[in-house]
């Protein structure tokens, strides 16, 4: 019994010693690399490039004029979208109004 106790205690001490020896080895393996950061950096740089190319359109234009152009462009874009939405309604309205002149004519005739 005494021998077994001694054996287990010394085995435990030996495992502690082994762990202590392996700590620097684990510290060496705690550095690595991945390509995820590179991909993120590439996406960000691509976004930057697209923004810069958009801004290059107004490189030769003065700042005040650039603002006006931007406003005009946004207004034009708004109008275009409104027109796109409004067009289908007009076609239905036109079919409704197409009948009314005929009734008017009848009324006149009456």
């Amino acid at each position: 019994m005494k021998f077994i106790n001694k054996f287990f205690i010394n085995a435990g001490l030996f495992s502690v010693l082994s762990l202590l020896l392996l700590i620097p080895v684990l510290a060496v393996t705690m550095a690595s690399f991945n390509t995820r950061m590179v991909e993120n950096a590439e996406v960000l740089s691509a976004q930057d490039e697209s923004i810069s190319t958009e801004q290059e359109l107004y490189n030769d234009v003065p700042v005040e004029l650039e603002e006006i152009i931007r406003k005009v462009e946004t207004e034009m874009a708004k109008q275009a979208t409104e027109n796109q939405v409004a067009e289908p309604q007009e076609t239905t309205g036109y079919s409704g109004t197409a009948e009314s002149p005929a009734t008017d004519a009848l009324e006149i005739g009456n």
Partner: protein
Amino acid sequence: MFSKLLIKLIDQAIIPAVVLVSTRIVSMALLAMYFEVPFELTNKGFIFEGKEQYIQINSYSMLIMTAVLAVSLAFFLLKAHVFHDTHITPKLTATLFSLRMQGLVQSSLDLYTKGAIWISYAYLMTILTGALALYSYIYSFVFYTTLAVAAVSSILFVSDIENEVKTSKDDGLDHNVTFLEVGTDQL
């Protein structure tokens, strides 16, 4: 009940482990800052964005670890060869005591447990750098440097053990001559 030698070895292994781990962490951070390499510090440790940068930082960090290991081994070997209590010169002993530096004089048990730990770290570092160099994760000269440090320190450690064995055998007495024989010559 407890093995005295194992407890002594555990006691002697704590400081070298802490020194080597802190050297690794500090050197990685400082080298990344010096080379202006971006990195992330996560649960898995330092993560670099490219293999080239990882190899560069890893190699120099391992080289710094080897340098720390070499300095520690050199200090241990100096104590083993010059200040070992079994073969220190009387003049040096007197000088050390007059300078109140008698702590440098160490026994064989202290020296050899320290030596066993540092030499073990040197061998582990050699194996590790060899494996990393094999897979091209570090420059190969780092492996050769670590191998040279381990080999030289092993040779010097063994030579000190040889000195120790020689000293214990050479106790100033001629073992072939017995007391009775001396007595017969005189008669």
